[in-house]
């Protein structure tokens, strides 16, 4: 009788483990929902990488904002750059704003990188990393989608592709149009 109880308990335990693992692995590891998702995007005012003034997130209110954290020493940032360029060209005349936030390096290196990569969108310098910390960034590259209401709707950890960028932007535009 005891053996039968143990056998059934083991089967039930294994089934539970399989179910737990199946649920865990269904999630996209790049779509990590930490503290900032669904909350107002932390405000910031940062200097442009080229030194031509400041950019405040508050000035972009009412627009879809794609904030991309990057650094020149980060190889996945180089990998994702062509997708960012294509998406920037696609939306440059629209209500979508792309903003690159360079962090954990000198401004000189960051500026040389954006000039080398042909980055046409606005790039700013997060010199002390405070903005990255306030967004809960683990490391570059990371991309945040901020809606016209100023709330962070999504984030992507690691190199992002064109489809994910377009999907994130269009979801927010559709929501804003409703």
């Amino acid at each position: 009788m005891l053996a039968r109880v143990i056998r059934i308990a083991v089967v039930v335990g294994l089934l539970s483990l399989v179910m737990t693992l199946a649920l865990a692995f269904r999630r996209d590891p790049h779509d990590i929902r930490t503290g900032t998702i669904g909350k107002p995007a932390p405000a910031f005012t940062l200097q442009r990488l080229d030194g031509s003034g400041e950019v405040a997130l508050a000035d972009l209110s009412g627009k879809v904002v794609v904030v991309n954290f990057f650094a020149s020493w980060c190889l996945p940032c180089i990998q994702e750059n062509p997708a960012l360029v294509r998406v920037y060209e696609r939306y440059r005349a629209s209500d979508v704003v792309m903003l690159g936030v360079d962090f954990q390096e000198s401004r000189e290196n960051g500026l040389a990188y954006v000039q080398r990569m042909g980055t046409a969108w606005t790039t700013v310098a997060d010199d002390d990393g405070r903005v990255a910390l306030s967004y809960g960034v683990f490391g570059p590259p990371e991309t945040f989608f901020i809606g016209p209401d100023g709330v962070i709707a999504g984030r992507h950890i690691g190199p992002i592709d064109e489809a994910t960028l377009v999907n994130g932007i269009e979801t927010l535009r559709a929501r804003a149009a409703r």
Partner: protein
Amino acid sequence: MNRRVVVAIALLVLAAALAFAARPHEATADERIDQITTELRCPVCQGLSVRDSSSETARQMRVLVAQRVREGKSNAEIETEFRASYGDWILLSPPVASWSGVVWLVPIAAIAAGLVLATGRLRSADPLEPVEPSATQVAALRERVAREEAAEG
């Protein structure tokens, strides 16, 4: 002076010195920074605290913690600021009340449910109680015994 009195006084002085050294005192700024950064997880490391990590991210976090301590923020307020950005994950010892505790409870609950289920099924099964043979069976057995005794004869 009595030797016992001297020993007793010496012990009292020692106890008083120990009590004085171990008295609760207000932590200095550096102690608080150490305490907070020991409790915070380095986001770019494997299981290292912000205090122990040499990464740039951890360094920036230590600078931010130090600034918040200087600003007069409490330990809880500083940890709350990091939890707002990174969630409970940023604490090396997340609060027990967090929903993540369910991850540990589910397998235990599942095994307990399995045991209850198995016990219930076994109890509902027919009990193995001794059954009295019928009169026909008794007669057949007697007849068989008599036949075998006659054969041995």
